[in-house]
């Protein structure tokens, strides 16, 4: 089976700092793939490179058989990769619905059809009742959900989620996990997520990649990864659980 | 529209905005008018003051407002663009417009029936300037062989520059233009321009300027220690009060070839006296005289028409024939296009803090002096 997304020796340097250091991995179509690692490990930077927000200095990023390294963010999105931001960025003055409509219009010409689609997604993410509110008035967890809805509205094949569980309480985390599972099952969308909430990672991910200081130190099933001594040492710490 | 009582004249001038200085100067001509008109037996005018704010739109709106408020005659507006905007209102409403100052020839080339201009066009100003220059050269027995032509790059300056290139060959002038230097009307500093002119080492400077740049050029001449044989200006700036006030002794000497008043005419002397009384320290100049004369034309026509009806008034203006006016030339009479063809330039020289007229002979009250006294030896 060929991978939907495949990274080979991707690196990124910020002045003196090697934020991402020759990272390689494959994400299979339909997978739920998680990236974990301590703060500043380079996870968001990795996402930014896949999503076209920054250009990799080195290495190849191949999506659905085509190289996408260095494409602009919008071009990447049009090819089927949608992302959320770690520091959420909804369109503040627009209503929730219009926020999602913007995403839905990417592959739909008519505003009417886009609105239909947007409402569908808002329902799925429990935001339907708030659809007329301005996005600026939402709480942080709601904003994160809104970002997921907007990203989904672009009909992606690959969804990049940067810490969307942060700030959700355990029950809400479970609901988000369930939503993503259902989406993954119903639409076949591949999900690549960054997460610190291990509860969600364990419940959701089929595969986990661990980054530390820009280097991939482990990759495998969640169960295998949390037992890896290097991961326990650098990320989970002795005291966890 | 015809009513009894004094004729309502709407005067539109740029009294604020970037032309505020000149607009407010013109307004002085309005202020001294009623008493003088009365003294020469002309009927009283009811004057409505308007400010165009130096903008074409405001000029047009204010003109329309005045007409709707009952103005039976309009006077204005110093600036050609604003005057043209007002002209359209005048024409559409059948209200005569008497142009006080505005040199763009187009104004009287549009076939307007209600627009009259008692001011020379750019072409007329130039032709007279060349004629008067020759008269001055003959009087002093000297003439420059080379000049540098410096002009401000605004409406008037550009029109004059174009005219010079067209007309000069016809007049067989003794000098040759070495260099033409156009400068920005908003210039803050003309040191480069003067340096450039000085580098060509001409006998004289030929200039078309405004007040601000006239002062800047003079200062630079002093600082760069260069006194040409003569400065010959063909427009405003060099004869204005501010120029004298600011530069003192350094203001003496430049020649201006421009529309002016005839100091020998009685009305001009009357105006001078009235102005001196109302505004001590202000010398009579073109702005006052021509703005006053526009009102004179209106009052004169009103007297002859005997009615405030604008149509009749326009007819009366058309048949104007005033000989006892104040400006240089044969008086005021309009041709079929509404242009006064009798109006003439004068040549003025700055002398002891005041411009005197040195040409044409019939209007002069002094002899020209040549060359310019070196700036360095004046203090």
């Amino acid at each position, binding site marked *: 089976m060929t991978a939907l997304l495949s990274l080979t020796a991707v690196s990124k340097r910020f002045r003196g700092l090697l934020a991402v250091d020759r990272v390689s991995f494959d994400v299979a179509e339909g997978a739920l793939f998680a990236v974990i690692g301590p*703060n*500043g490990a380079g996870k968001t930077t990795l996402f930014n490179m896949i999503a076209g927000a920054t250009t990799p200095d080195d290495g190849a990023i191949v999506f659905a058989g085509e190289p996408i390294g260095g494409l602009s963010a919008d071009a990447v999105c049009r090819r089927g990769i949608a992302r959320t931001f770690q520091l959420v960025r909804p369109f503040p003055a627009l209503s929730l619905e219009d926020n999602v409509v913007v995403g839905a219009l990417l592959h739909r010409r008519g505003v009417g059809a886009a609105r239909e689609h947007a409402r569908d997604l808002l329902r799925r993410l429990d935001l339907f009742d708030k659809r007329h509110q301005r996005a600026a*008035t939402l709480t*942080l*967890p709601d904003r994160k959900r809104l970002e997921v809805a907007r990203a989904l509205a672009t009909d992606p094949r690959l969804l990049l989620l940067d810490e969307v569980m942060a700030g*959700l309480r*355990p029950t809400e985390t479970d609901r988000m996990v369930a939503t993503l599972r259902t989406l993954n099952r119903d639409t076949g969308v591949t999900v690549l997520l960054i997460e610190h909430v291990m509860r969600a990672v364990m419940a959701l991910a089929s595969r986990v990649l661990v980054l530390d200081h820009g280097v991939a130190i482990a990759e495998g099933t969640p169960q295998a990864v949390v037992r890896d001594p290097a991961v326990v040492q650098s990320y989970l710490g002795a005291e966890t659980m | 529209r015809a009513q009894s009582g004094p004729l309502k004249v709407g005067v539109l001038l740029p009294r604020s905005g970037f032309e505020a200085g000149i607009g407010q100067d013109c307004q002085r001509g309005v202020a001294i008018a009623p008493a003088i008109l009365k003294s020469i037996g002309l009927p009283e005018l009811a004057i409505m003051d308007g400010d165009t704010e130096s903008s074409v739109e405001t000029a047009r709106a204010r003109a329309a407002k005045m007409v709707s408020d009952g103005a039976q005659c309009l006077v204005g507006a110093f600036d050609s663009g604003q005057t043209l905007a007002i002209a359209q209102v005048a024409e559409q409403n059948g209200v005569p417009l008497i142009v006080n100052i505005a040199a763009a020839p187009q104004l009287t080339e549009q076939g307007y029936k209600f627009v009259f201009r008692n001011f020379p066009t750019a072409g007329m100003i130039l032709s007279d300037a060349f004629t008067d220059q020759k008269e001055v050269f003959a009087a002093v027995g000297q003439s420059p062989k080379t000049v540098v032509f410096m002009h401000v790059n605004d409406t008037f300056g550009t029109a004059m520059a174009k005219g010079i290139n067209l007309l000069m060959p016809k007049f067989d002038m003794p000098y040759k233009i070495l260099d033409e230097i156009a400068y920005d009307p908003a210039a803050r500093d003309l040191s480069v321009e003067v340096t450039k002119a000085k580098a060509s080492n001409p006998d004289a400077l030929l200039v078309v300027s405004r007040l601000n740049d006239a002062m800047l050029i003079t200062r630079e001449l002093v600082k760069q220690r260069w006194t040409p044989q003569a400065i010959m200006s063909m427009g405003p700036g060099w004869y204005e009060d501010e120029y004298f006030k600011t530069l003192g002794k350094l203001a003496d000497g430049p020649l201006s070839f421009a529309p002016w008043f005839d100091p020998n005419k009685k009305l001009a002397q009357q105006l001078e006296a009235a102005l001196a009384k109302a505004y001590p320290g202000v010398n009579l100049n073109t702005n006052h005289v021509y703005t006053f004369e526009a009102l004179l034309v209106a009052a004169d026509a009103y007297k002859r028409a005997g009615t405030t009806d604008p149509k009749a008034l326009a007819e009366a203006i058309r048949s104007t024939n005033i000989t006892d006016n104040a400006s240089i030339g044969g008086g005021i009479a309009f041709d079929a296009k509404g242009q006064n063809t009798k109006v003439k330039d004068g040549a003025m020289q700055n002398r002891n803090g005041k411009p005197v007229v040195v040409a044409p002979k019939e209007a002069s009250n002094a002899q020209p002096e040549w060359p310019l006294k070196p700036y360095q030896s004046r203090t």
Partner: protein
Amino acid sequence: MLAVENLDVFYGDVQALDGVSLEIAEGAIVAIVGANGAGKTTLIRALAGMQRRLRGRISFRGVDIAGWPSHRVCNLGIGQVAEGRQVFPTLSVEENLDIGAMLPRARADRAKNRDRAFALFPRLAERAGQPAGTLSGGEQQMLAIARCLMGAPQLIMFDEPSLGLAPAIARGVLDTIGALNREGITCVVVEQNVALSLKLASRAYVLENGRITLTGSGAELLADDRVRSAYLGL
């Protein structure tokens, strides 16, 4: 020392704090626990005078300081180590510390306080001339604390002091809080590491959706089932 009664805070139409009441005793360490967006930062900002659209009473040693601007509040001796460190990136470490001592109450003791800060964090003394923006995250956090100490505060509010720090450094910061408390400084701590902050705290409040839902000593909350399941993931 500090008592809050019925505090309401609004962001535009959104209510972020709803009738919050709490008390901070002289010399205590008080932990405030809550999910993201619960209003912890808002509470601290309100107490510090940085969020002035509020209703309710905040009394500090008997003076109602609700609605006071931050520079007056600070000058009472209420210091803050804010979320995200908030150092001045282009200023040197030393200049950052100087700014901390600009409060009228602290001007006279500038030199003394600086020596104390450098004694507490020798790393900063080594880097006194370096622009703060080039410090590592942990060093920036030290600087934020040191800068706060320059203002000679009697009460310090820490907002997520270990956020973004490697576990070892995070623990060091929490130890520092304990040490400062022993010197007599009252502390309020908001910390993502709930377990540690509860262990440290003599009193703790749980904030949910802008309301206080639970209160008790640190140990009590640490043993509470709701807290264990919601915040400790147990």
